[in-house]
């Protein structure tokens, strides 16, 4: 018959209209600022820095290698290497970022920084609710604002975080074993680490200038 399709459609919308007042589970949307849907595990938005332990300053995994800064397509990462060194997750003395800023107004959420990070220090966050009344300084996140604990990482991406932790633990165990093995011939090991640490920063510094 003519027009049955239209009538069917009208009946459907009418049913939606009235039943949406009756059954609450028809309402597919939530009242956003108060209610939030749980994020799916693969969700990603802007990068953050992972730290281990309780203190963000001490446990930061980032060693300021500046690979992410170089790889970042829109160039939204700004890193300043520290002058001194701190022991990293494995226990090796490393540089740390004296300054680590991400301009999230520029960031395009491509996740390349995460892919290239050899230290599993930068990961993607699920936080998308970042409104601010200052569109320049407010969207320039410094290293304090960026750093989130490993527990938080487990919370938002459990599978991924477990895999990362397993890998890190394996590495730590390897490093501990190596340390134990190297404990006997004492003078060799610090000299080697110092030499490797001294050789790496030079080219990067030259490039960053």
């Amino acid at each position: 018959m003519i027009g049955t399709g239209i009538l069917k459609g009208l009946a459907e919308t009418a049913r939606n209209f009235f039943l949406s007042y009756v059954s609450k589970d028809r309402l597919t949307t939530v009242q956003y600022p108060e209610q939030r849907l749980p994020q799916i595990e693969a969700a990603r938005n802007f990068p953050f820095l992972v730290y281990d332990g309780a203190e963000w300053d001490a446990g930061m995994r980032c060693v300021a290698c500046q690979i992410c800064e170089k790889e970042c397509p829109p160039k939204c990462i700004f890193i300043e290497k520290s002058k001194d060194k701190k022991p990293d997750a494995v226990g090796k003395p490393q540089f740390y970022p004296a300054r680590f800023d991400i301009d999230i107004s520029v960031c395009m959420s491509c996740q390349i920084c995460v892919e290239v990070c050899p230290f599993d220090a930068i990961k993607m966050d699920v936080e998308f609710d970042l409104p601010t009344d200052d569109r320049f300084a407010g969207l320039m996140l410094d290293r304090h604002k960026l750093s989130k604990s490993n527990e938080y990482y487990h919370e938002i991406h459990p599978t991924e975080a477990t895999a990362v932790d397993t890998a890190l633990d394996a590495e730590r165990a390897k490093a501990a074993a190596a340390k134990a093995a190297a404990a006997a011939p004492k003078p060799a090991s610090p000299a080697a680490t110092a030499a490797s640490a001294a050789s790496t920063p030079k080219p990067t510094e030259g490039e960053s200038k």
Partner: protein
Amino acid sequence: MIVAAVNAGSVDQVFVLAKHALLARTPDALQPLASAIISIIPLLVVFPSLFAITTVLERKGLGRMQNRLGPNRVGPFGLLQPAADGIKALIKEDVVPAAADQLVHFFAPVIFVAAAFVAYAVLPIGRNMVLVNLNAGVLFFFAVGSVVELSVFMAGWSSRSKYSLLGAMRAIAQMISYEVPLVLASVPAIMQAGSLSTVDIVNAQAGYTGIWPHWYLFTPWGIVGFGLFLIAATAESNRSPFDLPEGESEIIAGYFIEYSGFKFALFFLAEYLGMFATSALGITLFLGGWSAPLGISLFTVVPSYIWFFAKLLGFICFFIWIRGTLPRLRMDQLMGFAWKFILPMALLNIFVTGLWRFLPASPLNSIRWIVCAAVLAAPCVVLSMSLKQKKKLLIRTYHFAE
């Protein structure tokens, strides 16, 4: 019964009496001016308020049809949303494109809104409540409606933007194509009433057989005419499914994309005012204007203007319902529908109205009914079958449309 009628009369005429009382206090020299102002101001207040109510109603209704809540943040149940929108439109910057034709760009929304308001002059919104009872009222309405096309062109052309121009071209093509069936669909009612005056047309539909009103809707040509009028009115007011001129997903907002702030709001207002005006004309022509739908004292007691606005609200809800249901047409479907289906049907409808008038009414009313309905139904079925697309489409499944 008589007491009730008298009471109803006084409530019914309260605005008319108030106007006369006010006029009696003004000096004689100022009376024509005062009379005009007193009559115009309510129109200028009531219909924009109706527009404000309709915007929130539309957004909430559409939301519910899509299993959403709709606006619910500003005020209780989001009812103050139009106020927030209005303030936003007022304080927004008024951007005029640098290449725009300044004068034409400025006058387009002004003419649009003016034309939309002027159309209300001939619409009777209650018993004795019409601004001017023009002898050629319906013609006036359509003449004013044709000015809208020009303002649409002015808006689209003066913006110097391809989206605007495309939107304007689409809008004009659509409005011209659907103005013809709109006028032709109104002709039967005019023929039957024997007058172009809106007041006379309403009066011709007054009265009841038993409790059944003499609306033109309850005749075979009235049903068809009303249906065609409704379709053409939807297209004429650029509403979904005929919203190609605006087509948010393709040409963003059509001819008024380069307008911002208050001018944009004016276009929005004028579109809705045009929709109300066309609906009001449909009510006047086919639904007996302000008369009560059933001739029982419970209904006739209710003041006439309340019936008018109830019918108008019904129209608005129907338009919202349609908008929530039907997807947008394609341009060739739109034009084909206007010229291949609506136009022939409207012409046939005029013929049937003539037939209705000249067939004897008194002894064989049901035979007259059947003959006219058959003359209309057969070509309608044939036309729609021949225009139907013979495409096999896959069945789509929805989450809640089981």
